[in-house]
């Protein structure tokens, strides 16, 4: 493992360079495909490189590999809330999107975009072969779900949280303990025998925090007048 890592780093550096310097070149297609597989196995991600590959597939459709495209889409899904998934779809021909595995991925994306977490996890369970092929998928979606919850809830009932991140029972207890210790979550008793989880304060679930930031001016804006002042 130790000997392989430096070589891996060298390859990805070169691919990123290729994409920056010589992206409109059919010869780099195999490198980009390898890079996708590398992103999957090493749990890294590069939207630019993947868009570059999808473009090349657009220019030469006979060289398109559906398996690689599927992996790119799964990685894009994991990048939510960024709109990467739809950015990739814009470059994939309609008839390809009609294929079964892509229809499934589009449905999964739809569920996530519209906050239908229970339906998402149900559908993902039915399509294990697609999503299990990419390590880190589950955690990435759970991170996205928590992000949405953090924008929405100050205090969230346990069942709602459980449904959103697809963790229940003892695993959920452990998860909550971990979050309480590391991410500032607070566990409270709700009405009845339910549990309430207090999520960390941010300007989106605590709008009073937003007001104080309203009239500050970012430094980048002030730098615009430095030449004038100087």
């Amino acid at each position: 493992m130790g000997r392989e890592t430096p070589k891996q780093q060298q390859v990805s550096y070169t691919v990123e360079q290729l994409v920056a310097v010589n992206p409109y070149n059919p010869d780099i297609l195999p490198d980009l495909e390898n890079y996708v597989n590398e992103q999957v196995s090493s749990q890294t991600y590069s939207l630019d490189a993947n868009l570059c590959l999808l473009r090349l597939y657009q220019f030469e459709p006979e060289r398109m590999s559906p398996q690689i495209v599927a992996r790119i889409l799964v990685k894009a899904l994991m990048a939510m809330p960024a709109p990467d998934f739809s950015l990739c779809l814009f470059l994939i021909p309609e008839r390809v999107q009609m294929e079964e595995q892509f229809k499934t991925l589009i449905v999964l994306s739809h569920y996530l975009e519209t906050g239908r977490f229970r339906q998402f996890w149900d559908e993902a369970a039915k399509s294990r072969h697609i999503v299990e092929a990419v390590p880190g998928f589950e955690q990435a979606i759970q991170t996205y779900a928590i992000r949405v919850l953090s924008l929405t809830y100050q205090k969230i009932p346990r069942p709602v949280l459980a449904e959103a991140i697809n963790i229940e029972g003892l695993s959920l207890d452990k998860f909550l303990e971990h979050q309480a210790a590391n991410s500032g979550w607070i566990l409270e008793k709700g009405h009845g025998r339910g549990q309430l989880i207090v999520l960390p304060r941010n300007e989106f679930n605590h709008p009073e925090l937003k007001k104080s930031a309203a009239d500050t001016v970012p430094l980048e804006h002030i730098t615009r007048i430095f030449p004038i002042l100087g």
Partner: protein
Amino acid sequence: MAANYDYEEAPGTYDDANRQDLGYDPNFVPDSVKSFVVHLYRHIREKNVYEIHQMYEISFQTLSDRLFKDTPWPSVDAVAHYVDNDQVFCLLYREMWFRHLYARLSPTLKQRIDSWDNYCSLFQVVLHRVVNMQLPNQWLWDMVDEFVYQFQSFCQYRAKMKNKTEQEIALLRQFDQAWNVYGVLNYLQAFVEKSNIIQILEQEKEGGEQFTATDGYDYSGGSNVLKVLGYFSMVGLLRVHCLLGDYQTGLKCLLPIDISQQGVYTSVIGSHIATIYHYGFANLMMRRYVEAIREFNKILLYIYKTKQYHQKSPQYEQILKKNEQMYALLAICLSLCPQAKLVDETVNSQLREKYGEKMARMQRYDDEAFAIYDELFSYACPKFITPSAPSFEEPLVNYNQDAYRLQLKLFLYEVKQQQLLSGVRTFLKVYSTISLGKLANYMEVDESTLRSILFTYKHKTHAVDSDGKIISNADLDFYIDDDMIHVVESKPVKRYGDYFLRQIVKLEGVITDMDRIKLE
């Protein structure tokens, strides 16, 4: 500026030989044309940029209107001996020749291929030889603009395989490199790289270079051609990427140009509009509605104030067309993301006049609403292309609409996902607190569905910007405490800091302009 962006082009129903038989002699050179080329040639040699601009912009148009309303200009072979057979001038003349052809007539396949060859030769000269010319920015912009336009036009043409003659198919097979997407992109990229324009713009920020201050012109005896072509090629790349549906990369190509300021891109109205139109459109497709609204608002106000000065210009029609399209895009953005305070009063009243009724219907999110979204999008979107080579297998089909249909479909898909949000907004406007149960009742959905709707609202109104930060564009926001929804209306805060900054920059701009006048 490039010709009409009509979606359906008139089919090229005649070829070279026929046309020449019908009363057009490519070798006849009227005296006025002889005089035109002789003078233009001299001005280019003497680097009289102002005169070149006058001849290019005005004389060429006047002669075209008077003598060549529906025929091409004399062939380059007929005029070459008046200009010492100068290779570069001939390439420039041919470039104008083809542009005129595309604008007034319908090019045949052979002519399309010849135009590609001419661009290749011209670009090779600029990229690989030391060129000692100064050309007006208008001309250099038109070159890039027309290059991309002819590429787009070729892709549309090529995708209509159904009624192609055997001769056309043979030509397509033979000249498969003409208007090849790799070629087009690589030329634009080559200009950007060879001109070093990105580094020049960066160094300019630190005071090390002069480019914007001189409008790209070289006052130290050199040539502006490569640098300015490199600059405009960044806009060209943005445009090509939009045509392909790759909005992220398109915006990346434009990044070195700071559109919050004046620049060489604003020195030519066509370039200014093309830049902001595509920038805005790309942001719209990436769901960055606030950014799109801001930029559309700025340019629409600018056009409103300045279009009277362009009434006589050959670009006037195009300016008006793009103006209308951007109003349509603004209407779409505001319907998906209500942000009343971002729109200037003048622009707003124009918008109400053109699309007030349609916007009200769009926000109802029923079937009629989708039809209007479809209509406006189809009217205002770029002419998307399929870049790959056609299949020559029987049966031959027309696939020129495929790219457009895909982008439209995905756009409407996004609109559909936001369908339930307007309903929620109506209720949030009325209540300051309401329990999930009650709201679910009013909206006639179960609590689980309501939660999904609220999550969707939060997700769609909190976009991730280019730096990865979350920006809320919600005019109406809320948070949930256990099972109670608390509504928060964001009150507009007077942004003194921003106001002062804007005024400081504006004043500096005025002083700089005044200084410039003194120098001239």
